[in-house]
């Protein structure tokens, strides 16, 4: 759904007023509200999106993931995630009978998987070229 024109104008105006990324705002009743930096950065990001006519969504990044969530991030099956945990490639802690995996470790493994597959693909092409398989 497209952003309404008046919303875009409001977002642009708000961005102009918040350009210094203030960490505290004064309410009409005189009270002051303080914001964490992450919240201000998120608000600015959202206003920039609306001002540009885009829509914006807030995505929460939990510190820990379930095995199913990790499987979705890694684009593998849940049993594969369980295997990776059992092999010690992803740390996990147990909450009752359920595993919880640090999101940072899952994302790091995701980056490693992408780097490894790209490296392997590059090697495959280089070898194939050297052997004349493209001829």
């Amino acid at each position, binding site marked *: 759904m497209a952003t309404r024109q008046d919303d875009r104008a409001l977002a642009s105006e708000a961005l102009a007023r918040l350009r210094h990324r203030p960490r505290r705002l004064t309410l009409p009743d005189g009270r002051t509200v303080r914001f964490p930096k992450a919240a201000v950065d998120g608000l600015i990001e959202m206003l920039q999106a609306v001002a540009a006519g885009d829509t914006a969504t807030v995505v929460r990044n939990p510190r820990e993931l379930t095995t199913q969530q990790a499987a979705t991030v*890694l*684009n*593998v*099956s849940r049993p*594969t995630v369980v295997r*990776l945990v059992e092999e010690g*490639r992803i740390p996990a802690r147990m909450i009752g009978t359920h595993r919880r995996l640090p999101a940072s470790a899952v994302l790091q493994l995701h980056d490693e*998987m*992408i780097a*490894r*597959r*790209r490296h*392997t*693909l*590059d*090697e*495959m*092409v*280089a*070898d*194939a*070229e*050297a*052997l004349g*398989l*493209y001829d």
Partner: protein
Amino acid sequence: MLDANVLVPILSCDLLLTCFDHDLHQPVVTLRILHKIDHSLAVDFPQLDPGAVGPSRPTNCRDPHASHTSPEADATPAVDGVNAKDRHVAATGLATRSDLVVTNDRRLRREINPLDTSLRAVSGDEFVVSLHRTRPNDIDQVLEAMVAKRTRQPVARSDLLHALATPFPRFVAEVGARQD
């Protein structure tokens, strides 16, 4: 689910795996399929060490941690309509919840598509045509990446498309039509 016949010759393999590298699809293969590729390479290039090159090389799909290498599934009654030789392809496709079996074997496609399952079979050409129709800009990046990787024997994009036209004729025609 990628059948062996779409991963040979190397150019087909390069295109499909580069599409994977750009997150256009998530492939699944089995060790039996990799062995078939070894066999094809050994026949076509008898001077090479078996398994030394191509997608079946030890450092690639045989990596036990490779997310796209699946154990072969046992045949179930759901795939009874598929010939015995290729039943493992359909069975593994179902077991891994694959959307598609990508195979250039026309008979296998004819056998899989009427099955009472969600699995569908398409040719390699049909597959990359569908990727191009849904994500044309990403396909442009795939082609650029394929050109960039060919450092020893550089190729132009037009040369690459010309070579791809044999295994992927409709794909190359649609890419060309979009550029015109």
